[in-house]
């Protein structure tokens, strides 16, 4: 762990303990979306917040070690494509676009397998939201405001006047 950069030791230590738990909780929200409050979007946001916490505590390079930017961009498209493919499989197997083609039996009620395609759909959405929210955060934190012309002169004047 890099000692330089990022926030204080307390924050870093807490982050080290919490990041896995937050991610795990996000995955739980995603997978149990059809039984308890939550779902793909909420779970994805929670998972992304684990990476955002790492970015805040340690800085972007450490976050990229967990989830490289290129991989996040790929995951972003992959999640959406998976969702689309699940919808198309409904057309393929059941004859209607987005049909729930995985049958469920009455015994499976209130269990993980009770919702057919909703669980894979939630996972796909979660993947998409996780990576895109992380990317949005990274992009916003990478923005630098470039001040030119009159604005720069005004800032410099303010700096020189006591």
């Amino acid at each position: 762990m890099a000692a330089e950069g990022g926030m204080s030791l307390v924050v870093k230590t807490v982050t080290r303990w919490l990041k896995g738990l937050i991610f795990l909780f996000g995955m739980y929200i995603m997978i149990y979306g059809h039984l308890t409050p939550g779902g793909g979007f909420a779970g994805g946001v929670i998972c992304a917040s684990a990476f955002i916490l790492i970015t805040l505590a340690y800085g972007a390079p450490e976050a990229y070690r967990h989830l490289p930017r290129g991989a996040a961009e790929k995951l972003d498209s992959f999640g959406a494509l998976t969702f689309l493919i699940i919808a198309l499989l409904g057309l393929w197997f059941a004859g209607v676009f987005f049909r729930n083609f995985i049958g469920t039996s009455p015994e499976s009620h209130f269990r993980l397998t009770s919702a057919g395609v909703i669980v894979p759909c939630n996972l796909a959405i979660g993947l998409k939201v996780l990576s895109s929210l992380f990317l949005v955060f990274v992009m916003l934190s990478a923005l630098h405001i470039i001040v030119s012309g009159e604005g720069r002169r005004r800032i410099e004047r303010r700096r020189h006047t006591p």
Partner: protein
Amino acid sequence: MIHAIPMMVVLPLAGAFFIPMVSRRAAWVPDAVGNAVMVVLAVISFGLIGREGIYHVGGWPTPLGIDLRLDGLTAILLLAVNGIGLCAALFSVSYMELYTSKFRYYSLFLFMVAGMNGVIITGDLFNLYVFMEIAAIASYALVAFGCEHEELEASFKYAVLGGVASSLILIGIAVVYMITGSLNMAQIADRIQTIGLTPPILLALCLFVAGFGLKAALVPFHAWLPDAHPSAPAPVSAMLSGVLIKAIGVYVMARLFFNVFGPTSDLLAVMRLLGVLSMVIGVLLAVGQWDMKRLFAYHSISQIGYVMLGLGLGTPLGLAGGLFHLLNHSVFKSLLFLNAGSVEYSTGRRNLKQLGGMARILPLTGGTTLVASMSIGGVPPFNGFWSKLIIIFACIRAGFYGLAGWAVLVSVITLASFLKVLRYGFYEAPAEKLRVERSMAPLMAVALLLLAISCLAMSLFVVTGLESPVLVDRAVEALSAGVFGM
């Protein structure tokens, strides 16, 4: 064939997500996938002409699931969006070499197409909002694609005003949902028939007029358009001016007012008023412009005014004129923007004061600009003449002689303004010698030719009579059939 309806959204979305995944290694992928998707979409939208049907997504019946509706109006709008989209995509292959990161461009382009197709085919009010936002947000990014100062400023202005419009629309949808308890258009129409146009519904209507009026850039909601449309790369300008303002502005207004809320005389009067205001103010603002694309953008405001005027008459002839002009405008306006793009591609300029003699340097572009200018100016036998003629006839037959007079006057000023483009840009010798940086690429020529031929070919639509031009008659039937039944 009914399964082709969801494909209008699925294919562009799949393309949009697929392109960024693979194109870092293979540079040819964005061009190939983008154009292949647009070809398939154009073919499907040809195949959907004359068909009707409701597709229940996921197999859920009407009030439970999302409906996708296909009728005459949907069919012509899909044809316009995907046909123009194909031409713009063909044009982009060479033109977008001027910019970096083509994969982002094609990805955003396909998102925009997916959003527009979604708005057109959906039968669910909230679904419509989501697709509208997909198209709008993709277009904000595409306007800013050059990342220069001017483009970012235009995109910011567009995004802020577009955001205002979207929130107005969302509040309107919330009010409708509150009163009717449904988001399905057919069910809303059914319930409004029993409830009547109570004050909350009227409030929602006002919000929709302002919101979709902003999206359609009707005067007085037009401030963003003259900045946003010229700043985008030429094929995107062609899509924005050619189809976006119609698909997420005019089409939705027509659909909601005629098929969901039911047209009242007050509503039609508002549509006519907005139409005439846009028509007259748009053209007056256009005359003084020297930037070619900016001039075209102001004319979009004016021509959308014609469409709204035709629709606002509410008679079958007026609807036919408005919808036919909508189709025609999408063809000749996108041709004009692509022409401006090809001039810019060759010379790097688009200010009429710095141009001249382009008809000799780029003979094809000169010819297609002449065709498009005559179309928009309403010169027979080009398509713009017929649709304007139908609108003017409809005004006279409905007893609005003043409106007919305005329509004629605006048409004359439009022609004058395009004669200025032709003279300074194409036929008069330039003030200083122009340096030609690039010659025209073959695919760009194909796109220009396709659109120019359509300008002529579409005037054949009136062979079945001014009352019912080919293709448009079914759309008129769909609009004038009254509100959706359950």
